[in-house]
């Protein structure tokens, strides 16, 4: 991806191409190492020969079977993390808001509520229907949060949008618990709709969600150029020939599809989409054509790392990945709120 960035720009002048290639290489190595760790580490300690054998498709014996179960889980963490990182970068670009994140803006919780409602009252059962409903819920939430956040003077300022998102998220979380508690028969698996986790990943669920992630990811990546122009401000972008509304809608749709599809499998996970784009904006600059793929890879690495940490920290049980990302991400959120001169309400 890095050698397509031939357009001139301050970021490119400041940061030579070779540095970006190095970052990309480093990121890929880290991600691979984390994936390996995720397969190797767990409540059960497995010797290397068994791991290698299990990865080769041999599931004889307890150890190898355990490792084989970690493979889809790892893949889910990678895919979900990539989707959330990418969606976060796109949301920050679309809203020009440093505090945007699928979790903070309530989009993931909206998807979660839609799925829970569907299960409880409309007899939803198939994984694909979960995904469609989750995408619908994510879309409705995204639009209403944006509308609430942009009411009044000054449009959707970072503070207003973040407040609207946090309030909506809290509201939706209340409804999720109300729906779940009304139905004892579904309450068992219900925790996963309040706090996200990747423990439930299977090859089956992956196969259902993958097409959606591909479509959403492509929509997002294709919108990179539009996001770069939107960053100049709506008037200037329109003056340069961008269809502002179309660019915004396309990018948002991609992000919503990613969030909805991910949440349908993992439950709501917050803060991944907040942390990662910020990190890479510092490292490689603000060019979205680079930022978006980097954010996807970074999100994958962060979520995989969070999952591994969650499994190491609480042996022999585990900490849900949503809890780990909140513990890592919330301090970062506070840091950004403090650092940015977010205009007072």
């Amino acid at each position, binding site marked *: 991806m890095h050698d397509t960035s031939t357009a001139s720009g301050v970021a490119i002048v400041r940061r030579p191409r070779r540095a970006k290639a190095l970052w990309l290489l480093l990121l890929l190595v880290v991600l691979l190492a984390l994936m390996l760790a995720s397969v190797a580490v767990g409540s059960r300690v497995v010797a290397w020969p068994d791991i290698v054998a299990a990865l080769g498709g041999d599931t004889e014996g307890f150890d190898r079977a355990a490792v084989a179960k970690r493979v889809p889980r790892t893949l889910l963490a990678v895919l979900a993390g990539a989707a959330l990182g990418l969606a976060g970068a796109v949301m920050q670009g679309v809203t020009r808001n440093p*505090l945007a994140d699928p979790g903070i803006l309530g989009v993931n919780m909206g998807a979660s509520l839609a799925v829970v409602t569907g299960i409880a009252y409309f007899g939803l059962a198939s994984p694909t229907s979960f995904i469609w409903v989750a995408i619908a819920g994510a879309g409705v939430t995204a639009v209403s949060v944006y509308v*609430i*956040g*942009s*009411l*009044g*003077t*000054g449009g959707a300022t970072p*503070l*207003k949008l*973040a*407040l*609207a998102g*946090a*309030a*909506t998220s*809290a*509201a*939706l*979380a*209340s*409804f999720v*618990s*109300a729906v779940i*508690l*009304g*139905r*004892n028969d579904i*309450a068992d698996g219900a925790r996963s709709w*309040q*706090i996200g986790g990747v423990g439930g990943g299977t090859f089956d669920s992956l196969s259902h969600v993958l097409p959606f992630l591909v479509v959403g990811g492509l929509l997002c990546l294709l919108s990179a150029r539009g996001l770069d122009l939107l960053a100049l401000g709506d008037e200037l972008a329109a003056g340069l020939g961008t269809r502002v509304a179309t660019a915004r809608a396309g990018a948002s749709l991609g992000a919503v599809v990613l969030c909805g599809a991910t949440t349908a499998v993992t439950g709501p996970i*917050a*803060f991944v989409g907040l942390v990662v784009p910020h990190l890479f904006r510092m490292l490689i600059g603000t060019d979205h054509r680079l930022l978006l793929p980097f954010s996807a890879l970074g999100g994958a690495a962060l979520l995989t790392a969070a999952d591994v940490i969650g499994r190491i920290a*609480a042996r022999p*049980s585990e*900490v*849900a990945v*949503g*809890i780990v990302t*909140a*513990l890592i*991400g*919330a*301090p970062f*959120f*506070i840091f950004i*709120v*403090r650092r940015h001169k*977010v205009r*007072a*309400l």
Partner: protein
Amino acid sequence: MSGSVTKTTQTPPAVPAAGAVDTVSRGRHRRGRRRLAVVVVLSVLIVAAFAVTLMFGRTFHPPADVVRVVLGQDVPGASFTVGRLRLPRAALAVVAGLCFGLGGVTFQTMLRNPLASPDIIGISAGAGAAATFAIVVLSLEGAGVSVFAIVVGLAVAVLVYLLAYRNGVSGGRLVLIGIGIAAMLESVTAHILDRAAEWDLQEALRWLTGSLNGTTWDEVVPVVIAVAVLAPVLLSRAGDLETLRLGDDTASALGVRVDRTRLVLIVTAVGLIAFATAAAGPIAFVAFLSGPIAARLVGPGGSLLVPAALVGALLVLVADFAGQFLFGVRYPVGVVTGVLGAPYLVYLIVRTHRAGGSL
């Protein structure tokens, strides 16, 4: 709330005309009467709701039986249901509601922002996380849990304030930082609950959304003591709290020791919230809702402490009763108040944004 802030600015002209004095005093009387009426009506409603809670349930007990049980007589059948099950539960609903209402409106008034209530900026979440930690990990009981909850609640309050401080505290920044802190603390609670697998769903819910299920007198007594000790302290500072609304400079010019008053207010309010949370869990949004509702009822001017406390008590009582018997399934009180409060939270933000600015 925003309206009442601007209208309390009572800077009298140097030489007031006789007519103006009359107008002001008439207005003050009228508002005083309205306040009194609101307080009386709320009290009556609380007593009525309390009585209904004691009488109705799976089985009905006539008022005469209930009165005899409350007076300590032994009534076959009613003594257990009313005396052991319903009475402590209703009592905790009232005192916890008082605590949440008082604590919430104190923060909202002091920070001049209805969103800055303890359940949104992480203080309730801190007390809840501390209580679960004390019970599950440290195996504490009773007073130890409350003390731990208060210490952590105070620490969270101080932390949020310090983190939000940059050339003064802006309301929006404080609220967002509080939301971030709350997210962390809630995940700590969730993790502790995950580990304590032997807890049943009800007990877990108490710490996630607040619940009064299975209340015993052991849990009620500390909260009653907390209200008896801390509420008078808070009420004695009601005037200073009102003056603080005018801003720190004006308040200190009017003779309020700003820092000391604020310290006392924070410690008492957090104490009330923490005691109630340790007993009933962080009953969602009661602290947040009570103040604005009371402000609507009472109208501009005057302290909101007493009306807000009564609104809180009434909210918890009614929501608990509704959660138990209105829906076919038994909902814990925190879910009912959460579902009530959540849309109001969004509405408040919509209204604030519409009005184009300060909360």
